């Protein structure tokens, strides 16, 4: 249209140029109207917060000509685009601040921090607390004032309970309670202090229970596979034990006059519990038949023997020492205490000959001779008959080998107590001593569930373990009892994919905003939980004993899970690398603590630090030194 108008003007000018001074001519006739021009359109589009061009919202302004005259501005017609963006928020109003600070989540978080502060402050004098908050020097002094404040110490060890296990168990427990699960907390996750422990052994990047438990119980990291001795040991060489023994927190507590106890759902001679009382060049020397003849003839003492004769062995190391022995021992592993003779079989023996000992000794009988007033029990009814007010020593061996998985406990022949029941009974016996007690509680079968590739068994045992911790919290006074909950190592156990909130943790992945099972690039569904290695997939239905996996060849790699109920107790998760069993992992483990000295559990520490925290909080070394002076 503009060009057309210019043409008219040009003609007019040319007309003027062509005239001289003659008369004005008559006006020409009007030209015809030009065609309508194109409409110019402007399109405004509101932009929401998060837009690429206007992160804080705004308006996008597109302009152009309506070439096709359809009354709208299509993308091809846009000539220019401009943005008018809202300014970013650089300040908040008082009302907005109040909303932020008054919401339930903030209030709960603030209360938790204050509670933690109170726990810390209550364990020292108020004056010291005030001072401690002001200067670093005073802080150090105030921490020193905590030494010996813990009358009782309880160390809970979830064998193999790595970070992913804690997370998955927390979700499973929440879901079993009818909730989404992720928001749930296991009992020990509510403790005011937590940190991480580095688990490696002196000679191993990925550790085993023997080396890690020795670190926790004795304060010194050592080699894989050895019990209660330092790194100068040569595994399998009994003669190298001499001179390399380490004192344990349990021994120090015993010397200090405290009552002591050991609980394990594994064999009581297994690596973790053994590291509380034994010194052995090999974790597998659980009874005399496990030791080479030459080593045995050289005087090497098996682990079971060391447990039963703990009192005399420790007394022989220190002049004039007089202790009263371990008050409470609960676990499995009768086979290592009985002679290899069917006449000694227990009522719920699961072998034609229950005992393994080739030296003909019945260590249960020997224990009874040492503690004539003590009670030896081997089943649920015997356990329930224990009078916790009067009994001074109790020795419970509830299974020929390991105790049952919690999910499989109902299948035990003679019946056996839960880890929570054992913890309760132990504390009720140990707290009869006014000088306090040391108790170690191990959930040994979390580890076995993982080794077998069964998340179900590992997680249900973790939940039972959490219940035992809750029972200990209930039965003790947090102002005088240090409780530490940790693991010796983790497992190659993963929580993966992008399942939506509340998706069954044992189930197959269902993505956010979906109701259908997600599929992998191979077109098949997959589970949230999985293992990096091991024997892999099993579909054993309602089976509750994870160890059945060892009766079958490995089935690693991808499986079609379309018609498999992955939440059933008998399902074993897929694994990648074929191994005879799933393995430990080398990452850090969580450490959770409450009570006097608990504040020392923080940050990332070496695992042997746990011993030093216990030693400091209860002043075990100081009290033991005083007792033998």
């Amino acid at each position, binding site marked *: 249209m503009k060009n057309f108008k210019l043409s008219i003007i040009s003609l007019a000018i040319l007309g003027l140029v062509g005239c001289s001074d003659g008369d004005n001519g008559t006006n020409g006739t009007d030209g015809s109207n030009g065609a309508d021009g194109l409409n110019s359109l402007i399109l405004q589009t509101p932009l929401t917060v998060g837009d690429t061009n206007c992160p804080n919202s705004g308006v996008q302004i597109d302009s152009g000509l309506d070439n096709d005259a359809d009354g709208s501005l299509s993308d091809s017609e846009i000539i220019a685009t401009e943005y008018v963006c809202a300014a970013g928020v650089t300040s908040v109003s008082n009302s907005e601040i109040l909303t932020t600070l008054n919401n339930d989540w903030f209030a709960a978080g603030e209360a938790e921090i204050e509670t933690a502060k109170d726990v810390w402050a209550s364990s020292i004098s108020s004056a010291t607390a005030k001072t401690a908050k002001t200067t670093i020097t005073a802080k150090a002094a105030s921490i020193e004032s905590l030494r010996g404040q813990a009358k009782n110490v309880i160390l809970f060890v979830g064998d193999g309970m790595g970070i992913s296990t804690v997370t998955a168990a927390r979700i499973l427990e929440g879901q079993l309670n009818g909730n989404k699960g992720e928001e749930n907390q296991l009992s020990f996750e509510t403790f005011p202090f937590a940190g991480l422990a580095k688990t490696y052994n002196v000679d191993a990047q990925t550790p*085993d*229970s023997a080396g890690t438990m020795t670190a926790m119980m004795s304060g010194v990291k050592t080699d*894989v*596979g050895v019990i209660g001795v330092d790194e100068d040991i040569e595994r399998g060489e009994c003669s190298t034990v001499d001179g390399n023994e380490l004192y344990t927190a349990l021994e120090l507590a015993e010397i200090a006059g405290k009552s002591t106890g050991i609980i394990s759902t594994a064999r009581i001679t297994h*690596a973790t519990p053994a590291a509380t009382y034994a010194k052995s060049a090999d*974790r*597998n020397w659980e009874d005399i038949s*496990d030791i080479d003849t030459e080593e045995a003839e050289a005087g090497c003492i098996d682990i079971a023997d060391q447990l039963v004769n703990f009192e005399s062995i420790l007394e022989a190391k220190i002049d004039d020492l007089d202790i009263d022995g371990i008050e409470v021992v609960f676990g499995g592993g009768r086979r290592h205490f009985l002679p290899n003779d069917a006449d000694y079989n227990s009522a719920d*023996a*699961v*072998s*034609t000959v229950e005992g*393994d000992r080739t030296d003909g000794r019945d260590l249960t009988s020997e224990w009874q001779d040492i503690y004539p007033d003590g009670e030896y029990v081997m089943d649920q009814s015997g356990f329930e008959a224990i009078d916790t007010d009067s009994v001074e020593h109790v020795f419970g061996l509830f299974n020929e*080998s*390991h105790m049952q998985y919690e999910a499989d406990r109902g*299948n035990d*022949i003679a019946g056996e107590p839960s880890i929570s029941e054992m913890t309760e009974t132990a504390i009720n016996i140990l707290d009869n001593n006014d000088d306090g007690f040391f108790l170690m509680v191990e959930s040994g*079968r979390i*580890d*076995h569930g*993982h*080794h*077998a590739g069964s998340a179900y068994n590992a997680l249900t045992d973790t939940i039972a373990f959490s219940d035992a911790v809750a029972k200990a919290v209930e039965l003790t006074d947090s102002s005088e009892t240090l409780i530490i909950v940790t693991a010796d190592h983790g497992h190659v156990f993963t929580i993966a994919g992008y399942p939506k909130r509340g998706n069954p943790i044992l189930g197959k992945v269902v993505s956010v905003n979906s109701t259908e099972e997600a599929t992998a690039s191979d077109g098949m569904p997959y589970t949230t939980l999985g293992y990096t290695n*091991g*024997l892999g997939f099993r579909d*054993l239905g309602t*089976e509750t*004993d994870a*160890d*059945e996996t*060892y*009766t*079958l*060849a*490995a089935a690693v790699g991808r499986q079609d899970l379309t018609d498999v109920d992955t939440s059933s107790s008998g399902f074993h998760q897929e694994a990648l690398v*074929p*191994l*005879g*069993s*799933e*393995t*430990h992992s080398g990452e850090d483990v969580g450490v959770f603590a409450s009570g006097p000295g608990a504040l020392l559990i923080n940050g990332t520490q070496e695992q042997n630090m746990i011993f030093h925290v216990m030693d400091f909080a209860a002043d075990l070394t100081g009290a033991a030194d005083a007792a033998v002076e």
Partner: protein
Amino acid sequence: MNFKKITILLIAQLIMSVSAYAKQACTDYRQLKAEYNISVQQKGHSSTNTQLILWREEKVVAHQYPSTKITEMWQNINQKLIKPIRYFNDYNRAIEYQPGEVVHGKKETDWSYRFQLISSSMLAKMTETKRQGAGCDERVFLTYKTDKSELSIVWMPQIKLVESFKLDNPSRKEHWQLTNLDTKTAKVDEYFKLLYAYKGTDYADIGDDHTDPFLTKMVTLGFVESGASGFYNDKGEALEGHHHH
């Protein structure tokens, strides 16, 4: 050399040996060593011959497979539970399983199935076609037919032992033949004593110690169990075994 004559002679000697033994052992059939030759002809495959040695006493049964150097043992616990143990003869090692659990997809509940190589319930389903001999020499010929299969067994009821077992169906022909029988209890005692001296590992501990070279090799050692005659259901179909090698 006339191989045919020698073969016939050997078979005759074996039959006489078994027969003579039966007379002697009838009073105590529980403790014995029985050797079987197993020949299998599958359609489209060449035939195979393997050996199974049955060792047993009152509460313990072992099936020794010399070809794989593995011995499976079952212990009868108070007539209530059956505990499986697997012995790896080349390694002097054993893996002990929990009684009452499923092993190889099968829960051990029938002691006769391991003790006799065929369960008493299966024997009860079979039809007697002939009976010969008396006392300890008594033999019962039993058959069981389905649409596609036929089982034939020569059963020694006084010894509770299979002398011969044949399976015949379009895809598989299998023949178990007792080749030697020994009731010298010392031999059984000696073999069991040998096995009991192996280093045993609770199956729950397999994952515990990755420094143990035997346990780390477990996955490749095979989970071997050659089939026994009791592995057939009432349709004559193999329930398990036969193919794990």
